[in-house]
């Protein structure tokens, strides 16, 4: 039978201010430095604000994360959960269950739900602090166009965008946004059918093939990990890079001029912000339900170049 949907979303009763709250962080994977940066932010904020936090490791597995959240609702262990979804659509249901059980849910970095162009809540009652993939794609394209100019190829500029995972909806949305914006921004040719992945090795192979097929490419955009593998292959060539992900290595490449720029999300700050918003809501305060990370937490819209990264340090390393 159809459940009574009005019962769901019944507002949780606010916790007293002096009660120690517990946060569950459902991150991508413990063995992922990006998630570790989020975690560092969460932990710091929690420790300073009468709360304790736990990292639940789903090891990049969508179904595992779904079960973990369901079980967390059962065990009533957490007052606040922060979700960094491996599979945004699969997490919709357990997030609804958590909300129904009166748990405060913060959606961090990737959306829960299937829309990739907005930071608005896709599950009612959630707090969202995310970097919408299309915004990310647009930002990468903007850096790419600037890179073309810096390379002196403002016209006739050939840009390669290395996809993350081939044909993953989230990657597809980002790739499409980036490719469209690159064309709109005046790139002469956009190559987007190479898969760079998220490791140096896959990036290296993609770059080898790219150089084979398009030796005259001017700018290469891709995940920072992939570009780390790709960069050595371009030594001696007039190619510059734009990375996605503000790791220590990426900062290094930007600072020494090898890369033009990097799309850098302040992930530790974002984690801290997620914890802050979650705890505040659990303690009965009202908080904004949607926050775009880059515009809110950085002064340069996450568009890191040698100039804008001056004095900044990376949150994590690859």
């Amino acid at each position, binding site marked *: 039978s159809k459940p009574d*949907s009005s019962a769901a979303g019944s507002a949780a009763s606010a916790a007293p201010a002096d009660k120690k709250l517990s946060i569950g962080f459902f991150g991508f994977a413990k063995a992922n430095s990006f998630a570790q940066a989020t975690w560092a932010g969460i932990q710091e904020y929690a420790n300073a604000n009468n709360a304790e936090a736990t990292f639940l490791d789903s090891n990049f597995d969508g*179904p595992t994360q*779904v079960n*973990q959240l369901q079980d967390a609702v059962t065990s009533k262990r957490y007052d606040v959960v922060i979700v960094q979804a491996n*599979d945004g*659509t699969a997490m919709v*249901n357990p997030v609804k269950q958590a909300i129904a059980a009166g748990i405060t849910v913060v959606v961090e970095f990737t959306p829960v739900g*299937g829309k990739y162009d907005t930071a608005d809540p896709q599950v009612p009652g959630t707090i969202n602090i995310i970097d919408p993939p299309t915004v990310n794609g647009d930002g990468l394209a903007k850096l790419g166009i600037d890179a073309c100019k810096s390379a002196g190829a403002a016209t006739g500029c050939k840009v390669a965008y290395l996809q993350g995972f081939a044909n*993953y*909806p989230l990657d597809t949305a980002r790739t499409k946004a980036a490719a469209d914006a690159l064309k709109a921004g005046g790139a002469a040719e956009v190559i987007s059918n190479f898969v760079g992945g998220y490791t140096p090795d896959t990036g290296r192979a993609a770059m080898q093939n790219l150089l084979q097929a398009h030796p005259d490419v001017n700018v290469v955009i891709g995940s920072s990990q992939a570009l780390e593998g790709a960069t050595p292959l371009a030594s001696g060539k007039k190619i510059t890079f734009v990375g996605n992900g503000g790791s220590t290595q990426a900062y290094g490449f930007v600072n020494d001029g090898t890369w033009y720029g990097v799309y850098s999300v302040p992930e530790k700050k974002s984690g801290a912000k997620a914890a802050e918003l979650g705890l505040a809501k659990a303690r009965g305060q009202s908080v904004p339900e949607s926050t775009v990370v880059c515009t809110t937490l950085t002064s340069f819209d996450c568009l890191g170049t040698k100039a804008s990264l001056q004095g900044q340090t990376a949150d994590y390393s690859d």
Partner: protein
Amino acid sequence: MTVDVTPQAAAASAPASANVSRLAFRLRDYGILAAFAVIVIALSVSTDTFLTRGNLVNLLDQTAVLGLLAVGATVCIVSGVFDLTASATLALSAIIGVKIVQVTNVYVGFAGAVAAGAALGFVTGMVVTRSGVNSFVGTLATSLVYRGLAVMVTGAAIIYPPAGLAEDFGMLTWPSLFGLTSATIVFVVVVAVIGVLVARTTFGRRLYAVGGNAEAARLSGIRVGSIHVSAFVISGICSALAGLILASRAGSAQSTMATGMELTAIAAAVVGGTSILGGEGAVWRGIVGALLLTLIGNGFNLLGWDTIYQQVLQGCLILFAVTMDRWLRRRSR
């Protein structure tokens, strides 16, 4: 019944010892259940949330998808083939289901998804049996094709039922009989039907015979190819149902659904005690395997142990369960 007609043996020692051996013979087959019981008891004692109605409902709900795939995998493995298309078939048939929902209604869409699963299973079966290629690599290649088709159909995006039908589309998450979710009910019904099919029908007998010795089966007048195709069709239907459950939960479908889960399903079948060599095994074993794998994750979550040790302990627990199963069988030889 004894077929022994030797008067001496029958008169002297047979009756008593035969009964004992009959019992040992039966018990040794259930080692995996014993291992399962040990883990359940350990969890019941060490947490107060495990043995709650809510958690058991969750556990079954969480097992439904893997359990359905494990049933399909078991049927295939028993008949001597692997179906590595399972998760791709899951995704593609769920996508087809949503596409149909978009132009008709939820019920037609669900039925269409199941039909699509059966059709994909049929195609897989034909590809494998006609090409004569080993099923492992044949289904691996076919699964790439299915995933690729899923990408092409969806344009690598997420697809949704129309807004007006979205709520009904989620019906498999609704609570149903005895407070179980509808997904669980689907799962239980399918398991029961396929369990009976495999254990009690002439089709089931053929399945085992083909998996145990395809040549002997062929010479006994069994159409080995058809049996294999049927196994793939059953697996396709199980995949489609699992896909519907996932899509219903997510409220959408996409080409990357359940990636890699075909291997977890095979693992579940094998952990339950089905031999990958074919000709042996049972549907219930696939279920026990799927429950065991889900249980271990669930238990960890409830115990709240640091997830850094989780994988190591999961690995050890699986080893414990299958080794216990193995040793119980061997000891009573």
